[in-house]
């Protein structure tokens, strides 16, 4: 198996969508036997660039060389034929089939007589790269990390020796991430070229050989990982020096604002989403919630906001049980609670409406009957644009046209303006760039100092550890324990996220 030194060479790649330049004259080269990290903030053009390699888009100009030959990739099929395999953020697997069936699917080798050869071949690959997996297990029985392994195995089986992984660690626990990195290194040693798309610095430093940094659609630099550090990378990524520390102001301990007692909730499919969950949040405190995606975080938020039917248990807001109240009643009863949902444009805001009309969402019932009074909303919209520095052409621009950070500011701003005593935020910095993220942390801290109780559902464990006062870890809808953020470690949280409970002595007890 002869390998050319340079696996992929992109030069002068430009791609525009209308007037938006997603990629501007980008150069990137990846060698065989090398892991390259493509680092950049959301919207910097990482995924667009990789989609051109996987045949989903076609560049407006520029050339692509794969293994020394100039190529034109017009479809995912072409991409496969060149040995490029992409692992998407959202897995493309058929749930009811086994791992083996998923791997064989669409390869034309599924015919019975070839089954035996394929068996050996899949097993050979899995052994060679250390991809341990039960090939006859059904996908629906698998954890996220196992599904990812199947995806990797699938592209390897199809002959890929250039692998592109789009944010592969977003859904994994720290331990699973370590395992993934081990596999990636093994693949590198076997001569594969690997591109890993990410915006997490510590992962870049941990796994890559070289880093190419994209900023606003341009490739700003390529550095050798061992010769750089987090602050240099951030500076390249953002374009200016950034202080990478999140403030955790000390506040006076106030009485509990929210007490959740033995809460049990079923999800839309009727399965238990939350089980016997109990915790309290005091005023002036940020309680973080950690857990692998889909561990019941969404249900927890929606249960408190009155959007989900509650099976058992109680939710006490200042000692009053709010279970069974509708969202309207919760708003009407003068309970100033704000829920900033995960799905900003799908739940928290109306995407096609402008900022003014989004300000009205929870307050439109106030004032005179029948007639809609836009005036206070307009005043509020202008004030928010001003104080939160929301960049928008005007307050009558539909919010879907704003960038992620500005959308989040609109949402958070509206909720803060209602003077809540309890603020529930789900993934408030998802999709935001570093500067916007820090603005959001500052806004939350400001509320904390005002004595607001904050429930913060997060995904980045580093952020949770720095920002929150205490962290509750969820696993399959169960409370694995609440730790003091100042004393906890990432490893500890990781173990708890995978189902190991915190004992009374503060030590983790293995459940098995």
């Amino acid at each position, binding site marked *: *198996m*002869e390998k050319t030194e340079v696996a992929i060479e992109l030069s002068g790649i430009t791609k525009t*969508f*209308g*007037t*938006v330049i997603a990629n501007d004259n980008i150069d990137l080269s990846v060698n065989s036997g090398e892991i390259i990290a493509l680092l950049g903030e959301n919207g910097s053009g990482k995924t667009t660039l990789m989609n051109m390699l996987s045949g989903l888009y*076609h560049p*407006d*100009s520029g050339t692509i060389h*794969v*293994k020394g*030959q*100039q*190529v*034109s990739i*017009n479809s995912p099929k*072409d991409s*496969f*034929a*060149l*040995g490029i395999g992409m692992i998407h953020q959202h897995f493309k697997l058929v749930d009811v089939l086994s791992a083996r069936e998923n791997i064989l699917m669409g390869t034309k080798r599924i015919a019975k007589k070839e089954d035996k050869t394929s068996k050996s071949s899949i097993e050979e*690959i899995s052994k060679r790269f250390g991809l341990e997996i039960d090939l006859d297990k059904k996908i629906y029985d698998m954890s996220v990390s196992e599904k990812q392994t199947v995806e990797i195995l699938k592209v390897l089986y199809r*002959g*890929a*020796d250039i692998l592109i992984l789009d944010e592969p660690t977003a859904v994994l626990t720290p331990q699973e991430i370590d395992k993934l990195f081990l596999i990636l290194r093994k693949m590198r040693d076997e001569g594969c070229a690997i591109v890993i798309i990410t915006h997490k610095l510590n992962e870049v430093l941990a796994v890559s050989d070289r880093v190419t940094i994209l900023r606003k659609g341009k490739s700003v630099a390529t550095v050798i990982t061992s010769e750089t550090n987090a602050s240099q990378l951030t500076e390249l990524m953002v374009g200016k020096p950034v202080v990478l520390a999140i403030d955790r102001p000390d506040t006076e301990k106030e009485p509990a604002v929210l007490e959740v007692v033995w809460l049990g909730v079923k999800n839309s499919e009727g399965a238990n989403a939350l089980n016997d969950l109990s915790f309290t949040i005091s005023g002036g405190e940020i309680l973080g919630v950690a857990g692998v995606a889909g561990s019941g975080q969404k249900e927890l938020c929606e249960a408190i*906001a009155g*959007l989900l039917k509650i099976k058992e248990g109680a939710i006490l807001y200042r000692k009053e049980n709010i279970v069974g109240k*509708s*969202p*309207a*009643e*919760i*708003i*009407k009863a003068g309970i100033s609670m704000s*829920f900033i*949902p995960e*799905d900003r444009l*799908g*739940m*928290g*805001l*109306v*995407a*096609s*409406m402008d900022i003014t*009309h989004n300000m*009205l*969402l*929870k307050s*439109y*019932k106030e004032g005179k*009957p*029948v*007639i*809609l009074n836009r005036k206070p909303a307009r005043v509020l919209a202008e004030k928010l644009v001003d104080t939160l520095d929301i960049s928008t052409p005007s307050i009558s621009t539909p919010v879907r046209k704003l960038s992620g950070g500005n959308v989040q500011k609109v949402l958070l701003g509206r909720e803060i303006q209602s003077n809540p005593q309890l603020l529930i935020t789900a993934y408030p910095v998802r999709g935001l760039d570093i500067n916007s993220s820090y603005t959001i942390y500052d806004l939350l801290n400001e509320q904390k100092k005002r004595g607001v109780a904050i429930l913060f559902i997060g995904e980045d464990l580093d952020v949770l550890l720095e920002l929150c006062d205490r962290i509750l870890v969820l696993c399959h809808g169960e409370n694995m324990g609440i730790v003091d953020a100042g004393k906890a470690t990432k490893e500890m949280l990781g173990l708890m996220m995978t189902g190991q409970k915190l004992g009374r002595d503060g030590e983790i007890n293995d459940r098995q």
Partner: protein
Amino acid sequence: MTGSSLTHTKKSGEPLVRIARRNELSTGKVWLLRLAAFLLAIAAGGLFMWMMGKNPLTAYGYILKGAFVGSKRNPLSSIQATIIFTIPLTIVSLGLSLAYKMKFWNIGGEGQIIIGAVCATYFALFHSYLPKPILLTIMFVVGALGGGIWALIPALFKVRFNTNETLFTLMLNYIGLYIIKYLENGPWRATPGFANIAKIDESARLPQISGIHIGWIFAVFLIGFIYFYLYHTKHGYEISVVGESQPTAHYAGMNVKTIILRTIFLSGAICGIAGMIQVAGIDYTLSTGVSGGVGFEGITVAWLAQLNPFVIAVVSFVFSVLEKGSRVMQTELGLSAASTGVLQGIILFFFLGCEFFVRYTFVFGKRRASK
């Protein structure tokens, strides 16, 4: 393992044509595009007339003449007839637009018109002893109630069982139609042996203002009302939010079920009013032709007007000009009814196609710089 793929490099160029989403165009450009679509429609329609062996200019002349220029004795007769076409179309489109604003696919305009007409006819036939103002008011109210309740049935099933409203409302159209057939052949039959219903009494007929029944006043009033309702009331705001995203509406504490039921009742009620007006203002009887396809045509009008009440009035008028004018052209040029249908279809095709180009564009493969 990967050896074979190394040599496998495709040499084909990039795809010839792709469809891409456009950036939102400025209003001026959008109208320029629409003007172009209109001119192209006229040209393509003309080509068709020419292929039929007719002079396109004469054909279009007859359409305009047929829609606007009346007879010598009554120079206003044609424009009056055009407006009479416009009234039910405008009212029904307004009614449907309420439902569409909420993304509730009410395809049941026909049925709601019919049931409104049936309810109104009942009072016109059997309570004609009542004084005219009272009788007409009652007919108006029951017409609205009938259409509203007919629309409420699929809405109730939608909120309760999440049934598909498109099929449900469509099927109810046919049920409505057969109710009229039943009445014609059974309890309301006027002459034995014929399937027809008696003419309604003078007291149940709408009075006329400047040669047109007063239905046009309802239409004008409804345009204003729907505009105000959608854009300046809390209900209107709720409709927009529910239409955009039901999770958001729940999150904002709105009672989504109530909003759906209320809005769909109103949507059906307005269609029902159109049915009442058709019976009391034009047909003076009830027949299976009472809706005249307006319930379906209204869907096109509502969307073409992008649910804007004022534009709905304009589009309805344009449709009516086309409808009335081509009837005249058809007789004057001796064409079959089908060929005017084709002409209308061609013109509509360009109008609707234009909206595609407002949002999307074709990207043609660029030539390679080298190679």
